[in-house]
C-alpha cells in the first residue's frame, strides 16, 4: 500500500476501526467508495467514509479481528488456516468483480489483512483509488511460503500449491480447486439435508464465522432493483464448524481412561476411594486398640491369640472391602447393562411377535409416488408440461463439454467421495415379503432414476449415465420438460459410482431440494439420497436410487 496514506486505530463504543486518511490530491473513485460503504461485500472490511476539511478518511471495521502479520509473527499457519486464508481471498476477489471493483485495489499486505483469530478467515481492505497497485494474491502466498510462515507437512501439499501458483496463466479458481482436496475434513461437521462438494462449503464457513454482521444478500448499488425471484442465498451446507483443537495430553490420560471406563459404568477412582477410606478407619481403630492395651496383658506381654484374632478379622474385612469396591461393583454394572440390553431385546421380540400375529395393514406405495398422488391436484404447469426423451447432440466426446470428467469439472475428490458416510437407509419396507400388490421395478430395480408424475402417469428418467441433462430445449438435453419456467439446460444429474448429485446449470428459476425455499447454488454438485424431491423451477422430480 502507498506509504503516504496515514493509518490510525480508533475505538468507537465496542467497535474497533482502522482509519486511513487520503491526501487531498488522491484520486478517489466515488463509485467504488459507494460500493464498499453501502454493501456487505464478503471478505472485504466494511467501510464508512468521513470528509473533514476536504480530506477523505475511510474507517474500516476491524472489530474482533487481528492483523495477519501479528498472527504469523507468533506461529506458523496450519494447512487449514492457509486454505481458509486463500478461500477468503478468492472470495473477496470474486465478490469485488461482481461489484465492478478492480481486483488490484484489494490490499494483499499481511500488515493490512485482518483475520478472525480462530479460523484465520481473512478480511481485506479495499482502497477505492486509481492505481493503488500492490501485492496480489499469488505474491502474498509466495511470501508466506518463502518466509516459512506455513507449517510443513509430510505430503505434497506445498508442492501442489507452488505449482498452482506458478501456473501460467495464474488462476485463483484453479488454485482453489487444487487446494480444496487437501482440506482436512472437520470431524465435527454435522450432516444436513443437503450437502455440497467443491465450492459449496466455504460459503457456509464464511457465513457462519462472520461475527456480529448481518448476513444479508448483497445489493449491487442503490439503483439496481432486485428481481422478483427467490434469493440466491447459500443453504446450510457442510458446515466447517468451529474447529476444536484436540490436544492429547499425557497427564490427562488417566482421566481419559477413567472417563472411558465410566462409559461402561465402573469408576476406578470411585472404587479406589471406596477401598481406601475403610483402610484409614481400620488403621485408626487398630491404633486405638493397641494404645488401649487390647493385645497386651496386665504384665505387658503380647497376647498372641488376640493378635492373631485381630489379624484374621482384619484380613476378612480387607477381602470384603476389596470385593465390594472393585469386584462386585464392576460385575453389578456390567450385569445391569446386560439386563438392560436383554430386556430391550425381549421387548422388541415381543413387539415383533405381536405385530406378526396381528393382521398386517396394506403395504403403502413408495413414499415418492404417494406424494405425487396426493399432489395430483394439478397446477396449470402440471397439466401443460409433458416430457419426452430426446437424445443429446451426437458430438464426439472431445468436443462435447459433458464428455469431460465430471469429477474434474466439479472438483469432486475421490477421497471425499470414498469417505462419505450416509446413513444406511432402511428400505426393508420394500423388501418385506407380503402378499399385497407391489410396484414392479422392472429394469430400474438396481439403477437410479427420476420420477415425474404428470397427467396421471409416472414417467421415469434413468440416471445410469455419468451425466444426464434436463431442460427445455430438446436438442441440448437428455430429457426435455416443456415448461417455460425451466431453463433450456436447467440441471445436470451426475452419477458417480452410484452416488447421485444434482447441479443447477445457472438457471433463472432455480433448482430446489426437498421443497426448500432456498435454491441450491449454481454449478455446485449437491449429493442426493433416495426419495429426495428435486424441483426444477416448479416441476418436481423424485429420485429413486440405492443409498450407498
Amino acid at each position, binding site marked *: 500500500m502507498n506509504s503516504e496514506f496515514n493509518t490510525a486505530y480508533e475505538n468507537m463504543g465496542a467497535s474497533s476501526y482502522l482509519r486511513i486518511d487520503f491526501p487531498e490530491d488522491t484520486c478517489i473513485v466515488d463509485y467504488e467508495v459507494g460500493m464498499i460503504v453501502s454493501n456487505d461485500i464478503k471478505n472485504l472490511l466494511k467501510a464508512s467514509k468521513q470528509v473533514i476539511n476536504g480530506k477523505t478518511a475511510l474507517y474500516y471495521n476491524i472489530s474482533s479481528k487481528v492483523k495477519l502479520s501479528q498472527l504469523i509473527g507468533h506461529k506458523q499457519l496450519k494447512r487449514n488456516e492457509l486454505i481458509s486464508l486463500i478461500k477468503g481471498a478468492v472470495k473477496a476477489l470474486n465478490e469485488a*468483480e*461482481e461489484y*465492478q471493483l478492480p481486483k488490484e485495489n484489494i490490499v494483499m499486505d499481511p500488515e493490512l489483512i485482518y483475520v478472525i483469530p480462530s479460523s484465520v478467515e481473512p478480511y481485506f481492505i479495499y482502497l477505492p483509488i486509481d492505481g493503488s497497485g500492490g501485492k496480489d494474491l499469488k505474491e502474498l502466498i509466495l511470501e508466506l511460503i518463502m518466509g516459512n510462515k506455513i507449517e510443513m507437512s509430510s505430503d505434497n501439499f506445498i508442492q501442489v500449491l507452488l505449482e498452482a501458483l506458478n501456473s501460467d496463466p495464474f488462476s485463483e479458481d484453479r488454485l482453489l480447486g487444487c487446494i480444496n482436496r487437501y482440506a482436512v475434513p472437520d470431524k465435527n461437521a454435522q450432516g444436513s439435508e443437503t450437502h455440497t462438494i467443491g465450492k459449496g462449503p466455504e460459503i457456509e464457513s464464511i457465513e457462519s464465522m462472520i461475527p456480529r454482521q448481518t448476513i444479508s444478500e448483497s445489493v*449491487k*448499488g442503490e*439503483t*439496481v*432493483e*432486485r*428481481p422478483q*425471484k427467490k434469493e*440466491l442465498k447459500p443453504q446450510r451446507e457442510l458446515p466447517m464448524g468451529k474447529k476444536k483443537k484436540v490436544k492429547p495430553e499425557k497427564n490427562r490420560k488417566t482421566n481419559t481412561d477413567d472417563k472411558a471406563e465410566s462409559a461402561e459404568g465402573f469408576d476406578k477412582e470411585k472404587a479406589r476411594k471406596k477401598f481406601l477410606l475403610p483402610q484409614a478407619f481400620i488403621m485408626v481403630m487398630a491404633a486405638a486398640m493397641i494404645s488401649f492395651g487390647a493385645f497386651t496383658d496386665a504384665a505387658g506381654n503380647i497376647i498372641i491369640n488376640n493378635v492373631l484374632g485381630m489379624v484374621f478379622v482384619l484380613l476378612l474385612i480387607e477381602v470384603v472391602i476389596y470385593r465390594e469396591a472393585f469386584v462386585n461393583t464392576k460385575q453389578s454394572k456390567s450385569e445391569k447393562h446386560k439386563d438392560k440390553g436383554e430386556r430391550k431385546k425381549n421387548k422388541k421380540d415381543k413387539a415383533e411377535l405381536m405385530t406378526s400375529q396381528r393382521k398386517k395393514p396394506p403395504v403403502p406405495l413408495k413414499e415418492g409416488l404417494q406424494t405425487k398422488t396426493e399432489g395430483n391436484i394439478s397446477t396449470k404447469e402440471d397439466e*401443460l408440461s*409433458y416430457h419426452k426423451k430426446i437424445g443429446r447432440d451426437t458430438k464426439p466426446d472431445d468436443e462435447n463439454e459433458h464428455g469431460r470428467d465430471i469429477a474434474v469439472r466439479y472438483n469432486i475428490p475421490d477421497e471425499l467421495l470414498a469417505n462419505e458416510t450416509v446413513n444406511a437407509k432402511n428400505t426393508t419396507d420394500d423388501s418385506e415379503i407380503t402378499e399385497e400388490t407391489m410396484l414392479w421395478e422392472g429394469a430400474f430395480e438396481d439403477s437410479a432414476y427420476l420420477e415425474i408424475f404428470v397427467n396421471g402417469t409416472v414417467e421415469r428418467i434413468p440416471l445410469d449415465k455419468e451425466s444426464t441433462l434436463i431442460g*427445455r*430445449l*430438446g*436438442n441440448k438435453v437428455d430429457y426435455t420438460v*416443456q415448461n*417455460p*419456467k425451466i*431453463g*433450456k439446460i436447467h440441471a445436470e444429474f451426475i452419477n458417480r459410482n452410484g452416488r447421485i448429485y444434482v447441479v443447477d446449470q*445457472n438457471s*433463472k*428459476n432455480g433448482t430446489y431440494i426437498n421443497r426448500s425455499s432456498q435454491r441450491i447454488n449454481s454449478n455446485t454438485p449437491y449429493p442426493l439420497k433416495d426419495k429426495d424431491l428435486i424441483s426444477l423451477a416448479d416441476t418436481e422430480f423424485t429420485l429413486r436410487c440405492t443409498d450407498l
Partner: protein
Amino acid sequence: MYVYGAICDIGDRRKENQDSILHLSGKLLDTDAGLFIVADGMGGMDKGAFASKSITDWFLSWWKEDLPQMLGAGFDSKDDIFELLEQEIWDINNFILDCSKRQNIRCGSTLSLLLLLGNAYYIENLGDSRIYLLRDKSISCLTEDQSVAAKMMREGQLNEAEALSSGLKNKLTMCMGMFEFPKSLRYFGKVEEGDTFIICSDGLYGRISSEDMALIAGEEGELQIKAQKLRQSIPKGSCDDNASVILVRNK
C-alpha cells in the same frame, strides 16, 4: 404483416461500432410475428460489440428454435412469452458475464427488444436504448431509461432538460452483462393498424427530437428510406456516438 427498415451506423466520430441490431419478420404458427432488437454495447474497443452481438446472435437462435417449439407446445400466453424472453435474457447475461470474467474484461450492452406476435407487442428493455410508438401521428416513448439521470428525473430531482444535458445520463443503472441479476422492464400492449414502432439507441434519440422523429417516421414510403432519413437528420459531424434505428410498421 410487419414491415421494417433498419440502420446501424458507426456515427461520425467513433472508431468502432458497438451497436448491434436484429430484425426478423415472418410467420410463426401461421401468425404474423416479428422480432426487433437494438443493442448498444459498451466497454470500449471490441468488447461492447462482443456484448451487443452476443445478444442478437442468441436471440436469433431463440427465434428459430426456442420460441416456435414453445408456441407449438401451447405456451403462448402473455406470461409464457415474457417468461421465455426473460429466460433468454438471463442466459445471455450469464454468458456475457462469464466470458467477461474469463477474459478479465468488463463489457455490457443495452437491450431494446420488441416482439410482435399476432396483434400484441412485448417489450423487454434494459439500459437507455428506447422504443417509441407512433400512433395517429402522436409519438410516445414506451420505455423508461435505466440511467441515473432518468432516475433522478423520475424522482423530481432533475427536469428533462437538465437530465438531457447531465453527464449522468450516460451512467446506466442496469444493462446486460454487468449485473448478476438482469432486471429488465417489460411492456405489453395491443398493436393497431398503422402503428409504427421506432427502436433506437441513444446515439440517435440524443441528437434528434421526438417531434422530428415523428415527422419523419410518419411520412408515407419505404421504412428503410425513413430509417436513413432519420440518421441523416443528425447534422454531419455531430453524431458522436453509434446510431441505430429500426422502424417497424403494422401494415
